[in-house]
């Protein structure tokens, strides 16, 4: 297996043989037209056979890469499909030189089939055309009446129009006769298929090069006027993945954990993750289908899996925050769209949200299905949650809390006002590490529980109104230094 994997790495070498041999065959084919004596069929067949077998070797090594070296993805699949088609076509071409009779029979059958299909298509086209023409004539009736009237009123116009019509009709008749009876000339199949071979191999090669050298490797340095002239847009496929977002948020993650092995100095498995172009061209990321991306699959594997990235023993594990950033990027979020979706959130909330892995709608639905519980995102597409537990019946509360444990980092505002929680239920609140606002008004919170809540480092707003807490405000504030707003039990008249 290791030998096969080793051999497969030579795919990039092998592909150059067909790329060189096929144009040589084409050159010989053309030269034969001028000097039939210099190039005989045997020579041409030899070159073509060599091209064919080199194609086969390259394709086999390519598939070897796919199965033994883990190269996969949509771009790779497309590359493989076109390569297979090219190989087949090379065989068809060479077969015409080596087995002429058999080929001719097959070709003649193919030609009849083509003609048959073409005739049916032509009938349909004519039918639709007549229908459309009739419709147009109908719709143009007012105009035609106008023309008819003006022709009656102005004889010179009538004459001019008649002459034009005659001329047009005769020309159309000629055209029609030319189209109506399609003439498929007996082609020089060898030439045509050789040309097609060249085109297919060129496409295969270009796609393969895009995979190894980057999407825009040929037009990267093209002067701007030429680009405008040819309509070349750089990073066409990649423009969906936001570059600014990548450079701002994703690249730092890769720099921390990946580029030692996939960077400038080392490119294990030919993968580079140190620039936007390289990542996008690598084929390991899939736009908008993050979970179909090889990159993400590797990141999310269990830590003891042999294929997990970064490898366990390298001491560069990713945090869940980091993976969240990568997912956001792959989902096609741009910095702008994220900012828009976040509805003008303060920067620190934005940063926090972007560091958390997404919560999907199913999870949210499941949470909301618990009687009396309301869970909403702070802002659409920002997975910080506003949770109201106040109206969850006692019987469902432990279930609600255990379900909430799955999204404990995402809970941002929590309302438990008026509820009486058991001590083990209070204990669960400590895991809501990103909690910013906590409403305990009218609950059975007491001093010991309150002390455990000092673990909530981000808590800024706490409501203890209508509780039996008697701790002085100064003590509470020193217990929870992050608190900005604090409501204690107090009567209206005290204020």
């Amino acid at each position: 297996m290791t030998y096969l994997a080793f051999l497969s790495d030579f795919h990039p070498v092998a592909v150059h043989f067909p790329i060189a041999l096929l144009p040589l065959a084409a050159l010989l084919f053309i030269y034969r037209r001028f000097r039939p004596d210099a190039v005989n069929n045997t020579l041409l067949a030899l070159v073509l056979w060599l091209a064919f077998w080199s194609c086969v070797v390259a394709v086999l090594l390519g598939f070897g890469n796919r199965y033994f070296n883990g190269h996969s993805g949509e771009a790779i699949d497309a590359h493989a499909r076109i390569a297979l088609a090219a190989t087949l076509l090379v065989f068809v071409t060479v077969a015409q030189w080596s087995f002429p009779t058999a080929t001719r029979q097959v070709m003649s059958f193919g030609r009849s089939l083509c003609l048959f299909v073409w005739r049916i298509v032509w009938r349909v086209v004519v039918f639709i055309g007549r229908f459309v023409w009739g419709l147009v004539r109908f719709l143009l009736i007012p105009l035609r009446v106008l023309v008819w009237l003006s022709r009656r009123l102005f004889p010179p116009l009538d004459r001019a129009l008649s002459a034009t019509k005659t001329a047009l009709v005769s020309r159309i008749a000629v055209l029609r006769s030319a189209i109506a009876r399609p003439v498929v000339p007996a082609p020089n199949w060898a030439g045509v298929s050789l040309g097609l071979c060249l085109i297919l191999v060129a496409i295969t090669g270009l796609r393969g090069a895009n995979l190894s050298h980057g999407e825009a490797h040929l037009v990267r340095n093209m002067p701007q006027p030429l680009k405008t002239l040819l309509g070349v847009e750089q990073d066409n496929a990649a423009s969906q993945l936001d570059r600014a977002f990548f450079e701002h948020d994703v690249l730092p993650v890769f720099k921390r954990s990946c580029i030692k092995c996939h960077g400038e100095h080392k490119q294990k498995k030919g993968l580079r993750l140190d620039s936007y172009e390289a990542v996008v061209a690598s084929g390991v990321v899939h736009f908008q289908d993050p979970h179909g991306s090889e990159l993400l699959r590797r990141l999310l594997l269990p830590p003891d899996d042999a294929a997990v990235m970064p490898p366990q023993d390298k001491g560069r594990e990713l945090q869940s925050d980091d993976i969240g950033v990568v997912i956001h990027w792959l989902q096609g979020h741009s910095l702008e769209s994220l900012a828009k979706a976040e509805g003008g959130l303060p920067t620190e909330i934005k940063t926090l949200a972007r560091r958390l892995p997404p919560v999907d709608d199913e999870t949210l639905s499941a949470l909301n299905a618990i009687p009396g519980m309301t869970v909403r995102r702070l802002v659409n597409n920002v997975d910080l949650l506003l949770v109201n537990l106040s109206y969850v019946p006692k019987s469902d509360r432990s279930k609600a809390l255990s379900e909430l444990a799955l999204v404990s980092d995402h809970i941002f505002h929590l309302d438990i006002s008026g509820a009486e929680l058991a001590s083990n239920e209070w204990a669960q609140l400590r895991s809501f590490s990103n909690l910013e606002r906590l409403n305990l008004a009218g609950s059975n919170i007491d001093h010991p529980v309150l002390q455990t809540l000092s673990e909530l480092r981000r808590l800024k707003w706490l409501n203890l109104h209508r509780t039996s807490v008697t701790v002085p405000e100064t003590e509470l504030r020193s217990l929870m230094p992050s608190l900005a707003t604090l409501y204690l039990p107090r009567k209206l008249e005290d204020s």
Partner: protein
Amino acid sequence: MKRRDLIKRLSVGTTGVALGLGGFGQRVLASAGGADQYPIFSGHHFLPRARRVIFIWQAGGMSPYESFENKALLHKLHDKSPVKHRDACSAACLRPLYNFSQQGQSGIEMSDQFPHLAKVIDDMTIVKTLQNFAPAHPQASNFLFSGERLNDKPSLGAWVNYALGSDNPHLPGFVALGGAENISNGFLPSDLHGVFFETEGRALDFLDNPRAISARQQQAAVRQVADLDRLYASISGDDKARAHGKVFELAYKMQSSIPQVLDLQQEPDYIHEAYGLNDESTRKVGVDLLSARRLLEQGVRFVRVTDGGWDHHSGLDQQFPEKARGLDKPLSALISDLKQRGMLDDTLVVVAGEFGRTPFNEGKFIGGFGRGHNPDAGIVMLAGGGIRQGFVYGETDEFGFKTVKDPVNVNDLNATILYALGLDHMRLTYELGGRTFKPTGVGECRIVRDLFA
């Protein structure tokens, strides 16, 4: 939303259409709520500043000149024609009837008719330029609450209920106290209609069961109805069926929840005193506002309190002090009570009439003082829910008759209320009969972001 959800949802939609039952109103936004809730939003459009709203409607339209608009020119031209200055009207000008002084740290100028409110004025924003599209009460109130002239469109509370619902499954999301006008669900599902409670006496008719029916029997019957409705709704995709079942269930739940929530005896005496429940002149509004506070505290999303009788075409000098006194103490108590409870941080208090009143003395023709309708400049009082504190917005001309700077029309106001709740009035929409309806009527309007701190 994941792709397979979309496909699931689409296939449900097609089934509905195929059966010819797909209701003509369709929810257009992705749902991530529980099986039985409406929440069409899994989240908000904007950062939600407020989580609930109390809208106190000064039905009739409070006079700006007896509350916040002190125009020197009117003192000068009192009982004289403004014709030299404006060729609009042959009526005589009417000066502000009461003394004005600056109140609070913010020094907002207000009349002496609101002594209690003056104490909490530093928590409030006063908008002086509320504009409406109609100068007559019925149309103007339709515009104020639904953004459209006719009264068949959903009220703002119903839209909020549609988007956010009630946090408490035992209480409705939209409650009306003091008056049941303009609380329709319009074309929205019928369970979003505002529920009107009487605050004095029995809150709601038929809260008690007939003696022959046990609570268990009734529960079983309600469950049957709701289950059948849910089944039909799941086959047909028809919101109306689901709403029907939900109304039954909610009514059943309210039999036990409402007597509890609206029992003001549970409140201590000092609260009764603060809201003015012990004084006949302040009792009506006081009871409504205290009930509203209790409802909001229990998870109701939107409470609309109607304080009628501000339409002072005549008798301004006798009736305005009564009305002002009736509102002043309870409103200031509400604001300080909410603040005390930590609720003012996420409760938006809106006090508005449908329009303002004119600087001219209409009462002159029938004796005494009175002012006509002025849809070009009215007062809105706002507090809580992230609103700026001690702030005045908008400017009127020297008569207080026309807005000269920062107009806020009723649709702007509603868009701003929705914004405070984290909702975008352009994205909170409902498809009906080929048209996309939004809560803020037709055309453009703006969110007045300046009102927020």
